[in-house]
């Protein structure tokens, strides 16, 4: 019988650079943030165990508005990106003319930092930007639309979709490419039209990929700082933006830590909800 692999001191040593790095830097910073949110390990010196910082944040209108805004941006950005990327992923499933060039074009945002992306899109959607100018010239609108720094945050959603499209596309393409041609042909053969195939075959079968894409997108958009800073509304800021204000402007590092913990908890909750939902969707399959 083959000897079972066991964790010898040597294997542990081999794992140390990777796993050790993750545990030390991520684990320690998470633990520290949590402790700081309760007043311990305070950067400012005085360390006392207290719930005061949590109370302060939970009673703060600004913090709550930031949280709601970030949740909204997370949900809308993830939905928006998946809705734009899914048809593209379907298109890329079949080989066609110009596919190669389009594929390369679409990957461009992947290599552009979020902040630069925000400034690029800014030129398009700003009050006197390209889109407004064109719409005005075509007499479609009488006065420019406020797409940038708009109260709702559409500008942020637009930039998030643009920036993350290639990333989400890659996930969805791999999910869709795993669907066999035969399965689609069988559906056609049994009388299914385009929409039936889309809603009964493609979407359910690609659902694990869609969920992963949505979760990752949500986490990215929820914890965003640069895009909301540039293109978001004047008020509220994102949770990350609020953290920066609390820490740098008010020197309230412990309250900033509370906001950090809220981001971490939301992320964990979303991942947990995903795994529950994925089980439901996939069942015994």
């Amino acid at each position, binding site marked *: 019988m083959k000897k079972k692999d066991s964790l010898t001191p040597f294997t542990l040593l081999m794992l140390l650079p990777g796993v050790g790095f993750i545990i030390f830097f991520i684990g320690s910073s998470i633990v520290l943030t949590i402790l700081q949110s309760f007043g311990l390990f305070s950067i400012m010196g005085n360390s006392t165990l207290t719930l005061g910082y949590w109370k302060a944040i939970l009673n703060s209108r600004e913090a709550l508005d930031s949280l709601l805004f970030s949740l909204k941006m997370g949900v809308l950005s993830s939905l928006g990106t998946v809705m734009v990327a899914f048809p593209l992923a379907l298109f890329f499933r079949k080989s066609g003319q110009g596919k190669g060039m389009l594929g390369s074009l679409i990957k461009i945002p992947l290599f552009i930092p979020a902040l630069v992306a925000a400034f690029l899109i800014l030129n398009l959607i700003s009050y006197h930007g390209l889109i407004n100018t064109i719409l005005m010239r075509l007499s479609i609108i009488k006065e420019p639309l406020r797409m940038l720094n708009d109260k709702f945050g559409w500008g942020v959603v637009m930039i998030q979709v643009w920036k993350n499209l290639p990333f989400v596309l890659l996930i969805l393409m791999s999910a869709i490419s795993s669907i*066999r041609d*035969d*399965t689609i*042909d*069988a*559906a*056609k*053969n*049994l*009388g*299914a*039209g385009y929409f*039936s195939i889309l809603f*009964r*075959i493609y979407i*359910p*079968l690609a659902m694990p990929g869609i969920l992963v894409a949505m979760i990752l997108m949500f986490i990215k958009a929820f914890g965003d700082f640069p895009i909301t800073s540039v293109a978001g509304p004047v008020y509220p800021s994102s949770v990350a933006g609020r953290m920066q204000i609390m820490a740098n402007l008010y020197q309230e590092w412990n309250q900033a830590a509370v906001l950090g913990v809220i981001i971490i908890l939301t992320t964990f909750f979303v991942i947990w909800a995903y795994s529950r939902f994925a089980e439901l969707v*996939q*069942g*015994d*399959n």
Partner: protein
Amino acid sequence: MANLTLSNLVKRFDDVVAVDHINLDVADGEFVTLLGPSGCGKTTTLRTIAGFYYPDEGEVLFGNTIMNNVPPNKRDTAMCFQSYALFPHMTVWDNISFGLKMRKVPVVEQKAKIERVMEMLSLKDLGNRKPGQLSGGQQQRVALARSIVTEPQVLLFDEPLSNLDAKLRVQVRVEIREMQKRLGITAIYVTHDQDEALAISDRIVIMSQGKIEQIGDPYTIYRHPKTRFVAGFIGMANIFDGVVLEKEGAVCTVQAPFGKVYIDTEGQEVPNKGDTIHFSWRPEDMKIRDRTSRNQISGNVVQAVFMGDITDLFIEVNGCRMRAQSDDEAKITAKDHLSFGISEKAFSILRG
């Protein structure tokens, strides 16, 4: 149900002609098998009938209706795929009901139809399972149930048994045939397995390089192949060339490399004296120690392969290798010297 006609059907993929001017009439309720080696165009023909490919030339007709540009979802065919192509996220019940839902059949009617088909194919207790929880044979039956439940005009099979083990293959092919007969649906079956084709079909269409080589019932195809390709492809055959020396009515005396043979050409194309012809006979037509025929051949056994019910023999006769079969109980081994008789009617004259 309907009869199916392929008229001068051509399908090209870039420069490759996959289906080359095919003509075929399939009667209502008939079971026709397209048989040939990989790349002969049989699956392309099937997929053109299903509507997955549109023909470049010619016509596909269901009854009198030209189907050339009708999309697959409007064709009223049902296909059993080689991979089964079951919907992995749906239960057996949902898989079977899919076609009925697409046709907007009332729910009560759907239920009755699904239950009947599941009963027929012994799937009664599997309704809540997903395809991943079924064995290969069960998946095959679900695929079959899914295609017949809609009562299509034409049932199409694309090598549906190739993923099953040998025993199950025989069992399922019998089931397919019985069910098709019972329902009276026109069926086109694609396979490269000659035994399957012989066992299951009303008629067999032998294809090679996009063209039809021969159409006939299994007996005719096996006993009277018309071309060198068909003789070589279906079963084992001894194929030789020879010159016609004499003609006496339908019987020709032919000089072959291994000796003289007498060939009764009745019912076949009769060659002229002096023609060079190709001809074939089956290994089982070589009867050991049979003195009743004028065709007497004797040679040394080069190799004898015991197969259980028969022994496969490779014989060398005047420098020519030929195959024979023996169901003799006596053990035959290499280097034995044997004599055979071959009936004059056992030969087929081949084209090409």
